[in-house]
């Protein structure tokens, strides 16, 4: 078996079956997954985005005639692999609810207002150092039908590719101090507390632009090939 990307990194992920998140019960495999060697099919992956991503796609507040309602925020960070290497030129797609907690999706029936000036979809490509930056509106919490009085904590969905089929990641970014995190079955589906905390962004005064927008930092770590063991020479 040629395992190139260490499998033990996958322990950060939630299991497929998390019964408190009711939708997983009939949508998760009940048989053991088949462990696959990493072949050319897994070690390659799609590389694209540059020809489709426009400069204003990273600013979700300028996609319509007027400005959306809500609290303008900046979300920025770096994409690295787990060995600490930056991942440049990779596509990030995001989507989210508006400030009132409503998605533009036709299936969202939450009786909160749509905002004609906000769609809630964005994309960008990481820079040479793996950095990215979005300007958007802080999304609202919204109710869902998982259980009685269930509310999702405010979150932004993110989708990333990285260099191979195996580095693909779809996740959600949360906001610091949100009381709903403690009772959210999706966030709590991640068994490891330290891994869960990696999904909570950090308020950052340096990212904050005076008299314009609050800043949040959210660094993203994709799987790596484990070619160099973890080492931080400055770690004292």
């Amino acid at each position, binding site marked *: 078996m040629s395992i190139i990307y260490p499998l033990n990194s996958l322990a950060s992920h939630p299991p497929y079956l998390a019964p408190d998140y009711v939708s997983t019960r009939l*949508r998760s*495999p009940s048989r053991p997954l088949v*462990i*696959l060697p990493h072949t*050319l099919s897994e070690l390659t992956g*799609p590389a694209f985005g540059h020809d*489709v991503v426009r400069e204003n796609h990273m600013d979700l507040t300028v996609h319509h005639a007027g400005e959306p309602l809500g609290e303008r925020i900046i979300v920025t960070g770096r994409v690295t692999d787990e060995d600490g290497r930056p991942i440049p030129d990779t596509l990030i797609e995001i989507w989210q609810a508006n400030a009132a907690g409503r998605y533009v999706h036709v299936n969202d029936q939450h009786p909160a207002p749509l905002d004609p000036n906000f769609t809630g979809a964005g994309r960008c490509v990481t820079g040479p150092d793996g950095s990215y930056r979005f300007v958007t509106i802080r999304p609202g919490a919204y109710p869902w039908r998982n259980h009685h009085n269930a509310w999702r904590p405010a979150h932004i969905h993110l*989708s990333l590719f990285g260099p191979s089929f195996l580095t693909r990641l779809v996740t959600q970014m949360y906001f610091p101090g949100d009381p709903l995190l403690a009772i959210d079955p999706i966030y709590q589906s991640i068994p490891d507390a330290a891994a869960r905390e*990696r999904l909570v962004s950090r308020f950052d005064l340096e990212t904050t632009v005076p008299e314009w927008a609050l800043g949040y930092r959210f660094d993203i770590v994709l799987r790596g090939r484990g070619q160099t063991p973890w080492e931080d020479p400055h770690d004292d």
Partner: protein
Amino acid sequence: MTTDGKTPRGITPSQTVGPFFAYALTPNGRYPFETLAGNDMAVPGAAGEVVTISGRVLDGEGKPVADAFLEIWQADGEGRYPAGGASGNTGFRGFARAETLDEGRFEVRTVKPGPVPAPGGGLQAPHLCIGLFARGVLRRLYTRLYFPEDGAMHAGDAVLALVPAERRDTLIARRSGDGRYVFDIVLNGPDETVFFEA
């Protein structure tokens, strides 16, 4: 994430795409955002026989999953994976996204891939890598699609050899006509599709 500026340890965990991804990931003319990858990768000039694959995604009670999408990654008809975005100068990208709609149905138009190198020499039987995302799926599900006419290659395929013999059929599409195949994906239950950990 650490707060002291050091590189964080451990990867960022996965979360579900939820039910509302379409306007960002699969707008397909129904939402006002340009589609980045649609369900047709059979560009003119791509090497290989043009094929159409359709199927349904079903849950553990056999009910259609109408809020999923598939991502397909594959080599072209000569077994070449696109490097740097496209394969040679044919414009073949090897990547498609197909959402499930009514009755959990999806469709992909592509070229049939050729055999690709296997680790340690030899070839893998032609296959598509399929990632599946949906509400209720906390982390991408990974399966592969193989073609029914390649039985001789399947017998010697190192990946298929890892799959219990009685479940191998779940990975093999059914031919339904000239250049047409059917491939259903069952997420849970007795007829469950084989999913991989890689």
